[in-house]
Structures are given as C-alpha cells and as structure tokens.
C-alpha cells in the first residue's frame, strides 16, 4: 500500500485513490486524425523511472491531481492540483 500525497488532503493510502495512469493530452476531437486519436487512446510511454500520472482522490477530496512517481521504486514527488 503506497502513500500518495494528495495536494489537498495530504498523504493517503493508495487504496483511497484511483490511479488514472500516465497523463496524456487529449487532442482536439474536431481536428484530430484517427491516427493521432488512437495514439492518444492506446500508446503509452510506460517508462521505468519517473512518470507524471493522474490520480483521483476517491475516498477523500474527490479531486483529480497529478504526481510524479518513479515506477522503478514507487517514490513520489511534486504533487499538483489539477
């Protein structure tokens, strides 16, 4: 059970939150090509190391926020409110 620092609530057990994966940027659906859209949908960097990811503080403040987490060690740093 890792600890995730919610920028509003402070440190919380990860079971109180929902991991939402790597932060991706949503292309403009009006203009995006299918290939751009599917890259957004499916392709992931999936690095072993620091990644910026989104979390939802489900049992706490119900806010989405981002943190940086090292996927090799589960260390976290820099949590930011959305």
């Amino acid at each position, binding site marked *: 059970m890792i600890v995730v620092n919610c920028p509003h*609530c402070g440190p919380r*057990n990860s079971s109180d939150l929902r991991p939402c994966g790597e932060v991706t940027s949503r292309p403009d659906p009006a203009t995006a090509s299918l290939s751009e859209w599917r890259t957004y949908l499916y392709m992931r960097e999936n690095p072993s190391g620091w990644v910026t990811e989104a979390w939802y503080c489900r049992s706490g403040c119900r806010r989405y926020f981002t943190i940086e987490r090292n996927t090799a060690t589960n260390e976290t740093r820099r949590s930011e409110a959305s």
Partner: protein
Amino acid sequence: MPDIEFKSPIAHGPVSAPDGSVSLEDETSTTKVVVRAATGTAAAADLGVPYGQSRLRADGTLVCGTRPGEWTLFAAAGRATEVAASVDTDGFVNVVDVTHGRAMMRVSGPKATAMLAKVCDIDLTDDMAPDGAVFSGSVAKVTCDLLRSDWRGEVSYLISCERSFGNYLFATLADASTEFGAELPTGLDIH
C-alpha cells in the same frame, strides 16, 4: 409534513458497552446541507472554515469544510430550509439538502478511536485528527465523511455515508465495538 415520519436507514437503536468505553447511535435525522461555493463568493467567506476544519456557528449550525470549495452544514432535525436559506447564493454557489441522502451516526467514548482504528486506515491520533477535524475516508470499505467532534468531554466522531450503506455501516461498527464490551442488539445482521 409534520405527520410523516422521517425514516432512518439504520434499523437499530443505540449500541454501547456497559462501561461506556464506546457507544454508537443513529443521528441520521440531523439536517445536512451541502454548500458548494467558488472562491471569492460571499458564501465562501461567510462559511469561513477551510477544508479539513469545522466551527460551530452562533445559530447552532456546525459548519464543516468537507472538501475544497465544499462545506457541509449540520443542524438539528427539520432545519434544512432555514439552514439553506442562511447561505448567500450570490455568484457560483449551490446548496443541496442531503439530509435524506446521507446516513449519520455518532461514535463516542474513550475507546471510540480504538474501535474506529479497526475499520478505518486514517491516522486518528490527536495531532492528525484533533477535535474539530473534518476528513473523508474508507470506513469498513464505505466512503464516509468524518468529523471529530468531542462531546460531553469524551472523544466522539460523527460519521456520515451514502444513505443506502447506513444499515451496513452501523452494524459493522457495532460488531467492531463488541471487543470493548458492546452487546449487539438482537436481530442485528452483521452481513
């Protein structure tokens, strides 16, 4: 509607240990009003307390900073209209009466914290959850809003959850209290 009884989802009367170390009672009829107010609105300024804290207003309403930009106001049963009206709705402010939507119970006594520590992973030590602290978390796998609200000189918590979980949560807390001597009321179904 004075003649229509307000029914709580909690089917059981109070549960307590004979030595008073822990007691549990249904407070669902309490008026509960949620206010959302954007930063900079008069309502936000009036409500005053930041997220995580609470204060007792002069009119007897307990104002809790339940989330960033969200307050829950607790008052005696039947005061919803009045409490809602007390909020300045100028700007992007919304008021929702959730009295019917949330079950509420009070846990108190010297063993209340130990009992909650069996079902809730939040650090309830005095530094981390002092009297007046407002927080949310999972209690026996149900997301709850909690308020540490010491009462009659005893440690006490007000716990509220989505109404439909109310009976389950009460029964589960009652079960957790048996370790401290509480007797389960007959017919209380734990699962």
